[in-house]
């Protein structure tokens, strides 16, 4: 009864806020927008609207014990192009820069939450979990796609070779996780402990390995689809260089950040924003430069650079706590913005078109994750409670997987369209379900509120 009394006035206030926001939005939408200045204004308004609406909706969903990021994602879905259409696809595209900035910021946080001593302690668990997740999830999804292809209306036009490539790429993409979601949930639950550290470690390591695995999958797919072609070793050399370069650049950026904190120390959130933006733009510029001048696609990964920078500040300087405090100070608007935009860009059309295949793949992926984490836990002699719940922590997928699907589409246009559609549908389900299960897992192992 006491709970009801506490929640009711808040619910009414939140409902009034949402109504007023919606009224403003409807009014502005009904106006004739002509100039670029007005268009920019409408986009800006939409951004503010999504920010506040997502915050309010997440507060309302707290009653149902759902994680805050689920609220942000739902708000994005509702405001997005497929339901109310308040945020059009063009607007979501225009806000991509803000989205990328937020992602770099989140990657800095991801790196900062990794403590060397924890990683050393949990090294074996991380290696086992990562290895099993890659092998089992890839294997199961690959087999499932081959088997399900006969029953799916989406893939009848594909030849056998194309189907193999399709299954191979989908298998690799299924391995992808969402570091940003993991960070947001851990941060919201103030979670800390063995289970949390393992999940974070696996998520970050997986993100690095995924780039390598995906390049490998592209090379193999190329061999399958092109008769007489062989593995191009130069690709692997460039890939190794890109990963090493990203990590090194991250270390350098991390050192610069800790120097700034030590010597200057104020306006830190602004400085970190500058670093995120700088890293993002510089890596893009360098990628273009290498392609234009050396005909080499050296793809420095902004996410990897930021993670490595955050890790360096946390573990190789004394400025880690101040760094994390500054990130935390501005993290809420960034999470709200990032996840609501992620929600708005979820493709409900793709889900409607391919839902039987998508739901089957989601179930197969979850089975793979369960088997992998359970075996890894048994081998590492983790507590039974952890082994039973670990699968719930690895379901979420987001931007990385979409990015990989789009990259694959560019390489293999003949199967790319099918791949992107299925991946978008699978991600829509995983992104909605994943945060909820992860929060449940953290509650079940008793690591919430320990930070």
């Amino acid at each position, binding site marked *: 009864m006491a709970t009801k009394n506490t929640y009711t006035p808040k619910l009414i206030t939140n409902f009034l806020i949402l109504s007023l926001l919606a009224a403003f939005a409807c009014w*502005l939408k009904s106006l004739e927008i002509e100039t670029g200045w007005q268009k920019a204004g409408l986009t800006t308004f939409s*951004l503010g609207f999504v920010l506040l609406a997502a915050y309010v909706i997440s507060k309302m969903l707290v009653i149902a014990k759902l994680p805050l990021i689920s609220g942000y994602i739902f708000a994005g879905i509702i405001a997005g192009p497929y339901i109310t259409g308040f945020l059009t696809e063009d607007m979501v595209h225009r806000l991509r820069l*803000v989205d990328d900035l937020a992602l770099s910021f989140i990657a800095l946080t991801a790196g900062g939450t990794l403590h060397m001593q924890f990683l050393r302690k949990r090294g074996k668990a991380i290696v086992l979990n990562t290895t099993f997740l890659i092998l089992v999830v890839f294997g199961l999804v690959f087999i499932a796609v081959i088997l399900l292809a006969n029953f799916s209306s989406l893939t009848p036009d594909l030849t056998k070779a194309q189907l193999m490539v399709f299954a191979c790429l989908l298998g690799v993409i299924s391995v992808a996780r969402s570091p940003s979601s993991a960070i947001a949930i851990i941060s919201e639950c103030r979670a800390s402990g063995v289970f949390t550290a393992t999940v974070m470690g696996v998520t970050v390591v997986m993100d690095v390995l995924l780039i390598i695995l995906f390049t490998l999958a592209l090379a193999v797919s190329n061999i399958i689809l092109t008769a007489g072609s062989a593995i191009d070793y130069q690709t692997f050399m460039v890939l190794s260089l890109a990963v090493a370069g990203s990590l090194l650049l991250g270390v350098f950026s991390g050192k610069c950040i800790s120097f700034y904190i030590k010597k200057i120390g104020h306006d830190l959130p602004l400085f970190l924003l500058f670093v995120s933006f700088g890293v993002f733009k510089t890596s893009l510029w360098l990628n273009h430069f290498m392609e234009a001048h050396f005909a080499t696609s050296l793809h420095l990964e902004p996410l990897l650079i930021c993670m490595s920078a955050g890790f360096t500040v946390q573990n190789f300087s004394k400025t880690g706590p101040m760094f994390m405090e500054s990130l935390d100070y501005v993290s809420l608007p960034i999470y709200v913005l990032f996840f609501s935009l992620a929600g708005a860009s979820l493709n409900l059309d793709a889900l409607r078109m391919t839902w039987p295949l998508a739901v089957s793949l989601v179930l197969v992926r979850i089975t793979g994750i369960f088997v992998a984490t359970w075996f890894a836990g048994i081998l590492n002699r983790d507590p039974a409670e952890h082994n039973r719940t670990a699968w719930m922590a690895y379901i979420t997928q987001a931007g990385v997987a979409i990015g990989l699907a789009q990259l694959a589409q560019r390489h293999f246009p003949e199967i790319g369209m099918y791949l992107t559609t299925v991946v978008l549908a699978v991600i829509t389900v995983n992104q909605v379900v994943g945060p909820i299960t992860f929060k449940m897992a953290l509650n079940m192992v008793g690591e919430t509120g320990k930070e």
Partner: protein
Amino acid sequence: MKITFALLIIIFLAFSGYHLSFRNFRLPLFARQFYLSGTEFLFLGLLLGPQFFNLLDMETQKGLAPLCALLLGWIGLLTGFQFEVKKLRRFPAEYFLAAILEGCLTLASVFFALYFTLPIFMNISNPIRTVAAITLAAAAACTAQTSLVLMSPDSIGRRRDTVRLLRYLSSIDCLSALLIFGLAFIFHPLPISDGSWVEALGWGVLISLGASIGLLLLFTLFLSQRRPENELILIVIGMTVITSGMASALNFSPLLTNAFVGFWLVNLSRDKERIYQILLSIEKPIYLLLLVFLGFGLRIDSMYVIFLAAVYCLYRILGKFISGFLVTGMARELKTYPRKLGFGLLDQGGLPLAIFLDFQQAFPSDIAVFVTSLAILAVIYNEFLSPHFLRRLLTADSK
């Protein structure tokens, strides 16, 4: 060429970092003024913009439009927060009238001077001619306290009353400037009125009032519960972005609309102190980013810009001098102050820069770029001239 500029940018960043870290470092007056006024960030913007590195190309700038709106809104809110009626009442009514009159007189004199000067040097016709003159005049009326703040207590000495009046005038005179700057937006057709400018003005006032009341209600609903600081930050950011976005979608000034909201908040909200602390916490970074944004569009490709900037600066000095002269003769209480009071009101500060950015965003054209460039140069001239004039005023006063 690019390497040279890369080197330059690194030097700028290093020096700016140095300036941020060692506040008491000794540099010659010229360099100190340069760094303390944040002029280096203008050049940083210039270097990053399309003219040099093109790191922030036009596409990127479009993507950053919400950030730009946030900057304008933030400064607008801060400006609105200066007008807390309870605090204003602590001073005699004559002071308030003097501040408004000083702002209006400067604005009127600079407006008329520029309205007739601009067509001599550039191909400019109405309505942009009026809009440009209003913008420049509104910016000219604003005064900052930079030089007053930088003065040592010894140099203030017995002139405490004069300094007190100068501080009061410089915090209030932007009111008339900002309101009249809002008039420039009459020339932007409102999305709901096709009639005359009188009708547009009526609609403009009605919409501004209606929208700010609605936004205030929204703010009040958010603040009806006690919220932790990180959530309050999100609310302030969200509301600022919404207000700015709504203003530009309605073809109105984000700066002015947010100033309205700020005014209502400071006078009606019980959380005003917490909101003000949030606004202040990133005030400096906001101004630095504003300078970088203005730097993108800076074009100094003709001597006319440099010359016109000097002319504008001169008009402003004359305007301030005349208005100061008239104001000090207005009432008995004000007659005790030096007649050259206007010499102490030459610092322009951050608000005019926000006005220029607002103008540049709302009226995008080559003329807007030209006008903004000359105005920014004039602000820099003012930053260098104002300490000398202030010293002169205070020396004369002590005699």
